[in-house]
Structure formats: structure tokens, C-alpha cells
């Protein structure tokens, strides 16, 4: 809590965006084929992914600062294992991701969203929040380790946001009328992350959506962690 901005921004901004979108896009629920009557229930998946993006940027920026100030060198000179540096950094991202999940969930329940998958689905949602945080966090640490620059890490933020906006964030893919947008959203892995969360809230148990969401997270995490580990090895050059 010594860096309130690192916690408050990822908690507050996604909720604000949820409030704005839920007010402005409520009419979408009238579209034939829209999967639910509640736009809040449909849009509640977005903060989970958006919050993970925020905390990823924070984690990457913090690590880059540790590199710039020489704090990473200080850690390197202790007997701690190299992977513990990554573990510690990602541990913080995951804890923040789970805290965000609790808050988003509480907001959703408070405004009357019903969880179709029930209490077990909420547990799966936390597991998914863990995976998303790990996956995006590993990308943040990779960027920090490769560039050693907080500015460079923050420069990735708009790119991540483009991925978020060109996805099924605001409308189901099958209802997107513009072909190029529908194709881009279909090719965009972020769509499947959103749809995995969404399935737990508004559908119930959808094995395909969950498998795709968890699978994509796992692939990103494996790639991100492997490359981060290699980048850390190069940087620490033990």
C-alpha cells in the first residue's frame, strides 16, 4: 500500500470503463442473438482482462526501475536463485490480479449479475485470473528485462489496448457486421480470454470457451516465462 497508484489504478479504471460502457451500450441487449439481457453481465469480463493489462504494465515498469537503479544487481549479489527474482515479481502481479478479481466480482454481484456457473464457476474464475495475471505479467517482465527501460515498457500499453479494443470486448463476435473487424476479433487471442470469463458468467459451463481461454493463457505464460528467464540470464550474466 506504499504505492497506492499501483493498486488503485488497476482497480478503479476498469470499473469506470465498465460503468460507462454499460450505460452507453445497454441497447445492444436488444439485438437478436445477444446472449444475455444484462449488458453488465456481458461486459463484466472486460475489467478482468483490462485490470491484468494495467498490473502488467506496473510490474514491468517496476522491474525496469529495479534494473535502472541497480537494485537487480543488488539481488543478483545475494544467494537467491535467479528464478526467484521472476517469481517475486510475478507473485506481486498475481496477488494484485486476484485482488482485482475479488473487487470486480463484488461489483458485479452488487449490481445484480448472476453467475450461471455458480460458486464452482467463481473458483474457476479466480484460477483464470491467476493464469491471466501470470501470462500478461510474464510479458511485462520480458519487456522490462529486454529493454531495461520503464518508458519502453509503458510504450507497450497502447499496443495492448489495441488488442483489447479489436476483440469481442463490446459485442459478441457473431454479431459483428463489419467483416474485417470480425476477422480481426476472431484472430485476436484476447477475444478468447474475454469469452472464457464471459462463459462462466452468462452461459454456465462451456468447455470449449474455457479450454481456449486457459490454453491461450498457458501458451502466453510458457512463452513469456521462457523468454523472461532467458532475458534474465542474459542480463544477470552469472
Amino acid at each position: 500500500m506504499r504505492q497506492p497508484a499501483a493498486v488503485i489504478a488497476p482497480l478503479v479504471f476498469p470499473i469506470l470503463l465498465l460503468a460507462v460502457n454499460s450505460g452507453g451500450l445497454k441497447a445492444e441487449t436488444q439485438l437478436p442473438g445477444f446472449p444475455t439481457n444484462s449488458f453488465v453481465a456481458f461486459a463484466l469480463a472486460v475489467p478482468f482482462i483490462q485490470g491484468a493489462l494495467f498490473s502488467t504494465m506496473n510490474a514491468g515498469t517496476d522491474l525496469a526501475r529495479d534494473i535502472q537503479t541497480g537494485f537487480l544487481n543488488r539481488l543478483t549479489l545475494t544467494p537467491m536463485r535467479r528464478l526467484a527474482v521472476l517469481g517475486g515479481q510475478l507473485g506481486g502481479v498475481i496477488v494484485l490480479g486476484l485482488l482485482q478479481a475479488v473487487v470486480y466480482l463484488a461489483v458485479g454481484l452488487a449490481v445484480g449479475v448472476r453467475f450461471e456457473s455458480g460458486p464452482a464457476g467463481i473458483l474457476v474464475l479466480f484460477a483464470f485470473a491467476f493464469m491471466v495475471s501470470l501470462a500478461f505479467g510474464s510479458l511485462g517482465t520480458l519487456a522490462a528485462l529486454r529493454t531495461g527501460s520503464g518508458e519502453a515498457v509503458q510504450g507497450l500499453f497502447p499496443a495492448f489496448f489495441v488488442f483489447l479494443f479489436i476483440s469481442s470486448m463490446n459485442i459478441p463476435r457473431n454479431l459483428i457486421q463489419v467483416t474485417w473487424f470480425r476477422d480481426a476479433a476472431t484472430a485476436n487471442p484476447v477475444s478468447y480470454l474475454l469469452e472464457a470469463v464471459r462463459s462462466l458468467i452468462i452461459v454456465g459451463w462451456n468447455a470449449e470457451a474455457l479450454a481456449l481461454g486457459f490454453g491461450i493463457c498457458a501458451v502466453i505464460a510458457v512463452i513469456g516465462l521462457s523468454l523472461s528467464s532467458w532475458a534474465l540470464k542474459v542480463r544477470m550474466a552469472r
Partner: protein
Amino acid sequence: MDGPAIEAEGLVRVFKKTRAVDGIDLVVESGEIYGFLGPNGAGKSTTVHMLTTLLPPTAGTARVNGYDVVHQGPQVRSSIGAALQEAALDPLLTGREHLRLQASLQGMPHDIRRRRADELLHRVGLSEAGDRKVKTYSGGMKRRLDLALALVHSPRILFLDEPTTGLDIQSRTALWDEVGRLTRDDGVTVFLTTQYLEEADVLADRVGIIDHGHIVAEGTPDELKASVGRPTVEVVPLDAGEHERAAAIIARFGEPCGSEHGVAVRLRSSEADLAGIVRALDAENLKVEQLQLHQPSLDDVFLAKTGRSLEGAAEEEEGERGGLAMEPA
């Protein structure tokens, strides 16, 4: 430990096309303070990074506390402490929290961590400030905390990379006292890099002068200074018309040499001749505005070995490095 605390042979580090360290050989005996003196960009920090296992050498070998820096990194790290050029501190943590964290990372049990933090805060004069966040510390306090962090696990060998850069004279002197005490009372070997002539002169038992990645001279400060010549005496007569007479008098004590304002002579023997010069000037009734004894300095040594002064070299290096991507230097 038998043998030297630090030894390096043919140590080289290349960054792309730049040979930052170009074949360094050195031996630092246990319990000595070795001063590594040179301008910015000479290769001091790169050498420290290699000796502390933060950078692998491109070529050559080095052993610290008897362990190979490439193949026995964990053993090297467990026997050294290092305060690197950047005082890597978290502004949001207190001094005490930093020390406890460092002790914890060193694997110390909880009760020992607490005791060690108190002890080190007291030693570096930060007991009262120990519970304040580091963002409220002055530069000198940060440096002292950095030193304390390097000492948490009671290392036998301490690397200090430009520990007093940017500090005021009081903070600098306090740090020198503490480093001297560490060697004198605790037998710690200190490898200290500096760009300050005075620091190397006052603190180091032996000095290695580095320039462009090479050690250009090595020895005790006195040996190095003696190697470049004897002291000179400069006399500025009160009456400008008396220059020739003054030159003739002091010429009895050595060979004339250049002087900007008056006349000067390089003493034939030692500074003991100074009294003779004063007596001779008095006997000849020559009134003097200024009389100065110049001992050779480490800057003279640097000048003799490289053809330029250390201060000039620092400015030149700064100019060359301006706008380039920073590598450890």
C-alpha cells in the same frame, strides 16, 4: 584463506567494438585497501562487475577469495559485499527495512536479522534515521546505508565502486573513517574504485591507476609519487626584478624547472632542503612573496604515464561518452 584475496590475469571485457577492460592483471592481498584510480570510462566499474560476477569476462581469469568468478559464482558472492556506483535503494522502504530485507535475502534467521540491522545502523550512524523512509535521506546517508547493506553478511572482501562520488567533504570523511576501521579492526579486504586522487592517496594501501582499460601504474601512493620525480620548490620574489637573483640562490639546491609566477627548482635530495633554501634566501636578504613546496601527486603520476592529467582525462571521457548508450564503465 591462503593466497591473495583477489587476483586477476589477463582480464578482458569487450562491449561490441569497445574493449572496456583490456588485459588487466592484479593481485590484492588479504586485509589491504586497494584503490583503483582512473577517470570516468577507464574500465573501473567494468572490472568490479567482473570481479563480483555481475559480468562474465570476455577473456582472462579472476579469483576472488580463492574462487573462480566464472565457475564458482555462488561461492564468490557469498564471500563478498558490494556497494556499487548506484546506491540501489527503494525510496519507499526505511533504512531498517532495507537491512532486514538484505539479511533475509542472505538467509539469516529472523532474530539475527533484527540484531544485525540495529548493529549496522549504529555503526554507520543511522540509528536515529533508521525508521525513516529512504526518500528523506541525504546523499551521504544513502551511501552509508549502501555500505551497511554490503556488510550485512560480514563479508571478507568488500567492493566499493566510487563510494564517495557526489558527497560533501564531511560525508566523504565519515565514509573514509568507516572503511579504514573495517580493514583495521575487522581485517576486511577493500577493493575501492575512485576518480578522486585524494581518496586514493588517503585511503589506499596500494593504488592501481587504470586508463583505457589498462593498468598503467601500480604501487603504494608513496612509491608511485616517488617514481615520477622529486619535490619542487617554487619561489616568487616580492620584487619582480629579483627573479634572476632568486633563481641563482635556489639553483644551489637542485635543477631549475618551469614556474608560472616565479622561479622553481627540482630538489636534489628531499624536502629537508626546504629549510636550507629559506636560510639561503634570508642570508642573501631576498624578500619573498611566496614560497611553496610541491610534492608529486598521483595526478603527476597519471600525467607521466598517460600524457594527460586525471581531471582533463575525466572531462575528455565525458565528452567522448556523451550521447552514447551507457555500459558499465
